[in-house]
């Protein structure tokens, strides 16, 4: 089984978010970049398929040379090969098109992507890859088993979960639950040394038109002061929620 894991290079979850160039660009100054958490759960599940079922695992990122340390980290965790499509990831559709080409060229049976990146939160790349390559698709996936050419997947739905079966090729929009937080792997020294020697192939992008464009960013308006209520006067909170905030 050939698995491709899509790796988005995103600001660490503790990052302060600021913008530059007249609020048109994300300010990367002082920001630590990591593997998108939703992708990391998928990568860790892919490692399980590699170790238990002999799958091969490649990782792909669409981005500039600055994303290579993130791909190397994925190699250090245990992926076999990395591919970087050398272009700026400007739009979910554009990224999906680039990855779809990699999928078709590589003949992958299973593509695992995070359900969304924690920076743009588009939530569109996995589904679009599936639609573009004609593969089956299961989103918000919290459990995945593969037996022969058939996948059994658990999907998180509003207020519960759903189990489904589908033939490969399959694309997964993954998240926490594919593996547990405690299953995530911190690369060890041997993994890091080996990752340096593993192939990282740079591919030139396909010629694709964007469908959307992020023209500007805004930060939420600064928050007013909190209204404190004394713990012996709880009735006041109920009154404020009813009469002032009008939410009950």
């Amino acid at each position, binding site marked *: 089984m050939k698995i491709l894991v899509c790796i988005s290079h995103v600001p660490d979850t503790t990052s302060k978010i600021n913008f530059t160039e007249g609020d048109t660009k994300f300010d990367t100054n002082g920001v630590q970049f990591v593997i998108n958490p939703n992708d990391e759960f998928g990568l860790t599940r892919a490692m399980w398929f590699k170790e238990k079922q002999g799958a091969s695992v490649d990782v792909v990122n669409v981005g500039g040379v600055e994303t290579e340390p993130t791909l190397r980290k994925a190699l250090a965790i245990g992926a076999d090969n990395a591919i970087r499509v050398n272009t700026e990831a400007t739009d979910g559709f554009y990224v999906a098109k680039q990855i779809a080409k990699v999928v078709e060229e590589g003949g992958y049976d299973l593509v695992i992507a995070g359900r969304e990146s924690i920076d743009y939160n588009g939530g*569109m790349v996995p589904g679009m890859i*599936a639609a573009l390559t004609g593969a089956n698709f299961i989103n918000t996936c919290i459990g995945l088993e593969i037996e022969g050419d058939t996948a059994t997947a658990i999907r998180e739905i509003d*207020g519960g979960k759903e189990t489904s079966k589908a033939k490969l090729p399959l694309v997964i929009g993954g998240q926490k639950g594919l593996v547990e937080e405690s299953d995530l792997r911190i690369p060890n020294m041997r993994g890091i040394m080996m990752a340096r020697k593993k192939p990282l192939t740079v591919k030139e992008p396909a010629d694709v038109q964007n469908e959307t464009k992020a023209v500007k960013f805004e930060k939420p308006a600064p928050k007013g002061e909190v209204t404190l209520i004394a713990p012996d006067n709880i009735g006041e909170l109920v009154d404020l929620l009813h009469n002032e905030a009008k*939410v009950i």
Partner: protein
Amino acid sequence: MSVLVYTENEGGNFKKAAFEVASYARAIAKMLGTTVTAVSIGADQNEELGVYGVDKVLHVQNDKLGTFNAKAYTDVLKQAAEKEGAKVIVISSSADSKFIAPLLAVHLDAGYASNVVALPESASPFTVKRTAFTNKAFNITEINTDKKVIGLSNNAFGLHEDKVDVKVESFDPALSDNDFTVEVTSVDKATDKVSIADAEIVVSGGRGLKGPENWGMIEDLAQVLGAATACSKPVSDMGWRPHSEHVGQTGKPVASNLYIAVGVSGAIQHLAGINASKVKVVINNDPEAPFFKAADYGIVGDAFEVVPQLIEKLKEFKANNA
């Protein structure tokens, strides 16, 4: 040319989000000088959509569509969009709608913007405001394709009544075997609880509650408010509560009208995930907890004393306002 909107139901009854996306579609239709057509798969009271400005309902009744199936539902919406010549398709932010949207966008050659929080800022170029960086920022996105798919954030627009005469038409799109290559084998859904996605009020507990045995009062508080229960990341990581309750940057996003956090300190990742909620209340014994900076109302006090009193006061309030 009309605006197409996908109105979801649960067991035949429209979800509140269905009325919200209908209200939103109505407002866009007014901007563009056109009408609203809704797609309803197996709902019972299709006329209800007229209250929110839906001019026409394409009602699909097909036993094969009794259980949600993303590929098949996408095909239904695609055919409906083509039939209506729709340029703008509006969907909600439910798990099912977010599943469909990217598939539909590719099949219609439409640009897709998710997590949209307001009406388009302009129709030409078509620009919408959406959340990004997990609610730490907004991003103005221009969609430059002829057709557009818009995913509306829950509770971002609200319900707006605008009653029109609604025409319900039966719609029977041709479906093929290829629409059913993902086979749903079982659905496991708690029917007696409000889900975080659908909830107008969410009550959340953190490490300050000291252990899973103390969640009874969180559930009681949620029950009196008709709220969903949620928890912080450490609580789900320690196994005190199921992962499905974890809200925050790597868990579920919350966009409720009221969010009550009990014993949650307010780590940046947690605040990001719940920031889209309109009114936030924090109950914590540590006045330095970062959550107080993000909250609208706060009580510095022992949760084990405050919460039971709050439940009593809410019960009194409900009795007086029933």
